[in-house]
């Protein structure tokens, strides 16, 4: 690693994810190498106002052997260090109030991000939220945007999965972590991490081995919105972290979008309120997001890729099931009451409809129309 990077790593280690202090100290020197030598010579003149902890860390990390070990570890683990000086440092990120002093990165961070769009939302999301996140993630990536997410449970990981399932584009997804680059959180995300590293990039501001502490996430969220041109909110509860991220995005001057939900649904209270107050633009498909940034936004329907089947092809019981589900989701017993047929005939018909993706099954043996995948047309 070159001398500039080593110096950045040194100062970053000492200030420990406090960008304001980092830039304050950086501005005192023309050349960080001099500063490091001064520290090694126990000349604390320029550091008279820093706390003892920081000073101790400055001294400890200034040691060449320490930096050798540190850089060695990073190289062995394929971790790239992106400083504000380097080309790969996202341009939009350097415009925010307190940009991170150093980004640790795994995977490939393109020099110019192709239309980065952040997707944020609740961790304990509903099936609706998960479905929408996957679909929007896929459509955004398909149309050349880069999906930026926090890779948390729920909406975050669903968005990432959706983006990864898109075929095209060079960097479909960037995952921004609230912990060290070598820490997998939440548990069991190892596989998703690998896929993100392979096709996109994993970045974090936190020093290696930092655990996923609660206070890290708001700090992380400013990077998620900071990197991106727009932020899409999918499902946010009454008083949620997601709403705070949206506020933060507005302060950074980012465009905020929200996916509307049912007004009775507790997981959609936050998003619906943003729409009502005019804080966010309601969106129903990827094109409505992209049209804000590019002329080439594509179709403006959510289920543009859905296949079409005719009503008559559903069969007698299939038609009745379809008509019943048009009125809303129903469980097997309700369907049996609605339709006059035996349990065995219903079961057989349900399997066929499930396999042709006309309907989908939700937990609790509840069935609903799968309008995203299939559109049923009526013959004229």
């Amino acid at each position, binding site marked *: 690693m070159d001398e500039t990077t080593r110096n950045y790593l040194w100062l970053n280690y000492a200030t420990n994810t406090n960008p304001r202090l980092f830039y304050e100290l950086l501005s005192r020197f023309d050349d960080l190498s001099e500063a490091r030598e001064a520290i090694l010579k126990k000349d604390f003149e320029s550091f008279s106002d820093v706390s003892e902890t920081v000073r101790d860390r400055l001294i400890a990390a200034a040691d060449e052997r320490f930096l050798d070990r540190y850089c060695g570890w990073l190289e062995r683990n394929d971790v790239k260090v992106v400083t504000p000086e380097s080309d790969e440092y996202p341009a939009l990120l350097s415009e925010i109030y307190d940009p991170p002093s150093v980004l640790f990165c795994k995977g490939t961070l393109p020099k110019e991000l192709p239309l980065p769009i952040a997707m944020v939302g609740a*961790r*304990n999301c509903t099936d609706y939220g998960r479905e929408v996140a996957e679909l929007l993630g896929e459509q955004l990536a398909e149309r050349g945007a880069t999906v930026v997410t926090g890779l948390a*449970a*729920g909406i975050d990981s669903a968005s990432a999965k959706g983006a990864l399932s898109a075929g095209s584009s060079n960097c479909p997804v960037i995952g921004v972590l609230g912990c060290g680059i070598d820490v997998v959180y*939440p*548990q*069991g995300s190892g596989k998703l991490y690998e896929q993100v590293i392979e096709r996109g990039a994993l970045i974090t501001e936190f020093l290696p081995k930092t655990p996923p502490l609660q206070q890290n996430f708001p700090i992380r969220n400013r990077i998620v919105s900071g990197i991106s041109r727009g932020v899409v909110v999918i499902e946010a509860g009454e008083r949620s972290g997601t709403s705070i991220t949206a506020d933060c995005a507005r302060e950074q001057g980012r465009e905020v979008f929200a996916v509307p939900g049912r007004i009775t649904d*507790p997981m959609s209270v936050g998003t619906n309120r943003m729409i009502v107050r005019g804080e966010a633009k309601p969106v129903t498909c990827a094109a409505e997001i992209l049209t804000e940034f590019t002329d080439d936004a594509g179709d403006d329907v959510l289920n543009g890729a859905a296949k079409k089947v005719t009503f008559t092809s559903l069969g007698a019981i299939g038609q009745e099931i379809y008509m019943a589900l048009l009125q809303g989701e129903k*469980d*097997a*017993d309700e369907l*049996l009451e609605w339709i006059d047929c035996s*349990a*065995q*005939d*219903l*079961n*057989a*018909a*349900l*399997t*066929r409809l*499930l*396999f042709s993706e006309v309907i989908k*099954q*939700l*937990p*609790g*043996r*509840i069935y609903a129309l799968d309008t995203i995948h299939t559109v049923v047309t009526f013959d004229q």
Partner: protein
Amino acid sequence: MLAKVESYGLLGLNGYPVTVETDITAGLPNYDTVGLPDAAVKESRERVQAAIRHSGFAFPTARITVNLAPADLKKEGSVYDLPIALSILIASGCLKPVPHGAIVLGELALDGAVRPISGILPMLIDAYHKGYSIFFVPKDNAAEAAYIRGARVFPVESLSAIAAHLRGEAAIAPADAKPFTGGTHKNAVDFSEIRGQTAAKRAAEIAVAGNHNILLCGTPGSGKTMLARAIPSILPDMTFEEALETTKIHSVTGAMKGTEGLITERPFRSPHHGASAASLIGGGGSRILPGEISLAHNGVLFLDELPEFHRDVLEALRQPLEDGEVTVSRAAARATYPAKFLLVAAMNPCPCGNRGSRTKPCTCTAAQIKRYAGRISGPLLDRIDLHIEMTEVGYREITERKPAERSETVRARVTAARAIQRERFKNAGIRTNAEMNGELIRRFCNPTGESEKLLHDAFKRLQLSARAYQRVLKVARTIADLENSETIRPEHYAEAIQYRSMTMLSDL
């Protein structure tokens, strides 16, 4: 003088004759019991002495040696009180010898009354096959013994009664041989009492028809336990052989004392999820008792809150589920008990229980649900053919007055389907579809054309294991049998697939 009285002992479900020999010689008064007696047998000395005195006899003042032969098997329990007392009285010349081919069993009270013992039925069935045909049994056990056709059973009330009988003063009337009047269904919940849940009831019917194990998954209060309790009511009536097998096992545990004699209703066993492996599959010290799985033989074993059971307990179930019997080995003894049961398991859809509920929110994270479902091992899950998600029962269903189908009607269909299977497998050595092996599946379930395409889709979408795939075929076979259809039609496969597509287990 020397006297011999024949009695009986039990090893697992198999009996062996025990000869009680008593020798009385002149000498310093002494009383010894030899022949590997356990504590209960040693204590019989006190009961026998008191019982003899209180029945109007004098206890001999001489040197008494009681030997229980064969001397190398451990004798247990209070079964030998009555034969020992009789042999002492015979040896001292008070009574004539017991008739040849007679077996005497019974525990004595201090006043000479005879108390019931456990394990009467398996002992006497075994004894009858070995040529014994006269049985002196405690009065309260007589009902159980009376089902052995061709045997003469004398219900003994007290030591003085049997003494009077042997002297020819007052003969004991032999118990009337009881005919088997068919299986009963008195205790189980009737299907018509279950409101709503039409889909789940249909699944239960299929499960019983093909003897498939079943897993019920649903929010608390969705009626999992009630449905499980109703399942014995649609099982076919017990046959005499089944009733005898089941009664034998229950008799070993002493559960049959003072009852009507024969278990004619299919057992429903519902052990708590804190149960140990030994209590479930059987165990004990030198006398190995049957566990819950054997007590459920020919009936239903219901495991509520399946993921809460200890993992080693669940894993111990795998072998008996395959073999239909369990062999428990201890250093001192070994016993094999039959364990053919229908496994009905129930679980919540997630740790908080509300996943899939439309009225209460679920507070579980994906990782929690994954961990919860992961407590049931794949191999065990693979042995359960039908997975059913039960939906919440709303107010409307509870107050519904539409009459539901009665168990009798369902049972008639199940019995018919089972008859088809018995006929089909008469040369294969099995009785039900669930027992089919790979070769039989290939022979009797042969999906072609549309069915094949359907199964291909299912295999890909549901990511079935090869084993799970075979189970779909078996269930489809049963569905066709319920309709008395020789060929398995595409809709039969389509329905069978429904019982494999549990969202909880496929999502994760």
